[in-house]
């Protein structure tokens, strides 16, 4: 049984901008799925599509199944119940997502009061428990956001997402803009919550090394599509799509001589979703593109061992994409 399943998800924004194109993903209970990609690749659109938070003008095709139930077939009341109690989102940018003029305890208590029949007192007790669960003393409930550091605010965001006891947590760039040490603290917290509470998680990041060390499986997205999927360590160590290889190389392994005085990047920029190149979308930036890549649409193909890749050269045995220049 899967907890979350996306079936051929398509999202098109106003002006015929296809942000997500035919994405199939699934998350089993207790599993952590990473979604990697950079700005404009559609990863945040997926976050919002799961809980129907997209603007009205966005056209959604395909299905989002949460515990087998189609999110897009739910009544508004049902959706409202699902939003905090079944699945919740840890948004990026904790500073801007919290209300600056309300004590954090009040902010965490709000969904609890709205979603359960808890009294104010019960809600306050629950807030204290939640804060301790994310590694903050319960008395910090009386603090305002500005009294907390960046890492502490991110912990508050996690407590908020846990408020109604969801089974699925979607964390959208939860560690962007945090220091390495604080990033490690937040990632350790998320991993321990997954373990201790049996949560499932979708972790979204542009940093493949973060996903590689935290997730069970990783899907790499480019221009609205999944271009590679597989076990997290395999995708990071032995990428089978040149774009995954470039993402992995952007955050090099310290000590790997191939990257010493040799930073790896791709020429050009990610394409604008409204103006995609033909053939394989990645071919204009691809270091190993062949002539036919400009004209051939490449679908995700099975590689065995639970891996898929949308690259014509994925199965070439001696193509060392991780080391490619």
């Amino acid at each position, binding site marked *: 049984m899967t907890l979350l399943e996306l079936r051929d998800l398509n999202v098109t924004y106003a002006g015929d901008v296809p942000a997500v194109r035919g994405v199939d993903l699934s998350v089993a209970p207790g599993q952590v799925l990473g979604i990697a990609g950079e700005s404009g690749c559609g990863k945040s659109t997926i976050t919002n599509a799961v809980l129907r938070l997209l603007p009205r003008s966005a056209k959604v095709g395909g299905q989002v199944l949460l515990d087998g139930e189609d999110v897009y077939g739910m009544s508004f009341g049902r959706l409202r119940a699902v939003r905090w109690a079944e699945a919740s989102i840890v948004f990026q940018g904790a500073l801007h997502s919290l209300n600056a003029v309300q004590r954090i305890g009040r902010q965490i208590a709000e969904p609890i009061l709205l979603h359960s029949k808890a009294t104010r007192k019960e809600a306050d007790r629950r807030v204290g428990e939640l804060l301790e669960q994310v590694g903050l003393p319960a008395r910090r409930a009386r603090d305002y956001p500005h009294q907390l550091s*960046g890492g502490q605010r991110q912990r508050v965001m996690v407590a908020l997402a846990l408020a109604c006891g969801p089974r699925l947590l979607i964390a959208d760039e939860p560690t962007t803009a945090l*220091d*390495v040490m604080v990033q490690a603290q937040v990632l*350790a917290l998320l991993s321990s919550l997954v373990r201790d509470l049996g949560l499932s998680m979708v972790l979204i990041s542009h940093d493949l090394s973060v996903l590689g060390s935290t997730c069970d499986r990783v899907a790499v997205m480019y221009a609205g599509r999944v271009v590679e999927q597989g076990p997290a360590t395999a995708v990071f160590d032995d990428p089978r799509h040149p774009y995954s290889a470039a993402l992995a190389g*952007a955050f090099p392994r310290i000590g790997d001589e191939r*990257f010493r005085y040799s930073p790896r990047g791709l020429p050009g920029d990610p394409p604008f979703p409204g103006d995609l190149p033909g053939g394989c979308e990645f071919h204009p930036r691809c270091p190993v593109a062949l002539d036919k890549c400009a004209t051939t649409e490449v679908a995700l193909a099975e590689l065995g061992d639970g891996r898929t890749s949308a690259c014509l050269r994925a199965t070439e045995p001696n193509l060392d994409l991780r080391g490619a220049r």
Partner: protein
Amino acid sequence: MSETSRGAGVALGAHGLHVRFGTARAVDGVELEIGSGEIVALVGESGCGKTTLARSLLGLVRPAEGSVMHGDHPLSYARGALKEFRRHVQLVLQDPTGSLNPRHTVYEAVAEGLRIHGISGDEETRVSEALAKAGLRPPERFFLRYPHELSGGQRQRVVIAGALVLEPDVLVADEPVSSLDASVRGEILALLLKLRAELGLSVLVVTHDLGLAWNIADRVAVMYLGRIVETGPTAEVLLAPRHPYTKALLSVVPEINKLEPVVLVGETPDPSRIPAGCRFRPRCPAYAAVLPKEVAARCETEPPAVLPADRGHHAACHLTEA
């Protein structure tokens, strides 16, 4: 390329540098030298003083004690001298979106430095050369573009061109790629290496990203609470770290199949209340583990000495001396 044989001369340096904001000792005794043609990475967490140190090296903050050296001369804070100094030592800011005026064209953004410094002569040629050096080719095509018409990587190149137009000998780059897309970062870092190779530029890169240091830096200086706690050639510091803080930082770089991460509790403490003895002691995993009594006593009472600015590998830790 050898890491130790590079450039004999010193392009920019800090000697006995202290910067205070009220009671906060943001920079608390720093010795640092950037050799000519050398790339030095200054790494540390937010609040460690790395940006303040960089700003004082740019002459933007006056030190309470100590001096900034440009070549062989101490920096003078007289207006004319400071303006002249800033031609030679240029800042590249993080977040190119925030550091470019949205209503200025690329040409105006790059030419601004020339106008401020009253550099006459062929402005258009200078702007065009600077853009080309920063990898925006053909430069004329970018003259009339506005920042919003450019991608993140192109905007960062415009910011770099704005620094290069004054033909500086040192660039101070504060988190030059942290706001860029992952696939674009490498190209900007490669540009810094290219500028060093072709123009002999010295670069001080301020960053919290140790992978970036591995990518481009000759030497690394690790800063904690206003002091440099470890310094040395990049490969030595990153592959054989001596200070417990450097070890902890390296252990949390997300990687797979590696050692158990040492996640320090808390965040960098308040620089107005620097702990007595070794400033890292309250968070030090080595101190918390069983230490010989004599060493522990030194950690509690005796601040480790300020590290020298030379190019050797040093750590400000009583444990490594013992």
